[in-house]
């Protein structure tokens, strides 16, 4: 009597011509690495746009700019850690949280601190791992301080 076919993806487990986890991960990592230049370029572009709406802009962002800032930061958060910039991802995530937590208001100083942090962390060789962690902890404290005084 023939076996019932396994459901879903498990029917491909143990199939002829298969590869193991280690080989799959190595191939996948190699493929991702090939996108590094483009990813870092996109991160740079996002940071330029973010700086234009924060550091270089005296007034608070309007609704659309706020949404744009959030999206740009999410893009950085999603990509950074996949290309050797884990602290940058965390800083960008913190900035997304800041945008949400200060809505509908805006705290320019806190925003600038976050943007400067992201700019620094986009070039991780400029700071040791300990320094990067310290920066992230600092950003959390900035948000915590803001929350306590709202």
């Amino acid at each position: 009597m023939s076996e019932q076919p396994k459901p879903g993806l498990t029917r491909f487990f143990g199939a002829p011509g298969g590869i193991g986890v280690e080989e799959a991960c190595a191939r996948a990592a190699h493929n991702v690495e090939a996108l590094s230049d483009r990813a870092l370029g996109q991160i740079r572009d996002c940071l330029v746009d973010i700086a234009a709406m924060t550091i270089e802009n005296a007034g608070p962002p309007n609704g659309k700019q706020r949404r744009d800032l959030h999206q740009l930061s999410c893009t950085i958060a999603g990509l950074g850690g996949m290309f050797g910039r884990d602290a940058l991802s965390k800083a960008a995530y913190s900035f997304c949280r800041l945008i949400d937590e200060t809505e509908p208001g805006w705290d320019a100083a806190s925003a600038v601190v976050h943007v400067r942090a992201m700019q620094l962390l986009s070039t991780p060789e400029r700071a040791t791992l300990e320094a990067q962690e310290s920066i992230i902890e600092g950003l959390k404290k900035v948000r915590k301080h803001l929350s306590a005084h709202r």
Partner: protein
Amino acid sequence: MSSLKSELTFNFENASVVMIDSSPLFIEVLTGILSGCGFRRMYRCSDLVSGTDTVKTHSVDLILIDPYAYGDAAYNFIQWLRSERRGPNAAVPVIILTAYTYVRLITVARQCGADYVIAKPFSTSGLLERILYVAESEGRRGELLAPPELVSSSGSGMEMW
């Protein structure tokens, strides 16, 4: 979450996966990861319309979706998928990938029927591990007893389920 099984082999050459993400670059990143894992039939969708059309017209084995750009419509899509009980894709594993995790997202993800939420950024091994995990859990959705919150050691947000 158990570590990746070193003795497991798989051939996903004939498996179909749908990727729904508004970022063309991230779609390429996912493509790179999945092709490295052996997937060859990949449907790349930049919006929910094409994602829905793909699911309606193809039998697929996995869906990866970042709901950020689509808002509640993304969760409605998953809910619709699960409601099509006689459809070929009603039980397909759905993994949400997102750079911005928040408590409501986790609740909504559970309610709409997603299998897993993974915070971006993630490692290639991390994504593969979750794909293998949900593959083995298919059909047991709702019985998962994982702790409600796991802090990811490699991501910026929280990895939950």
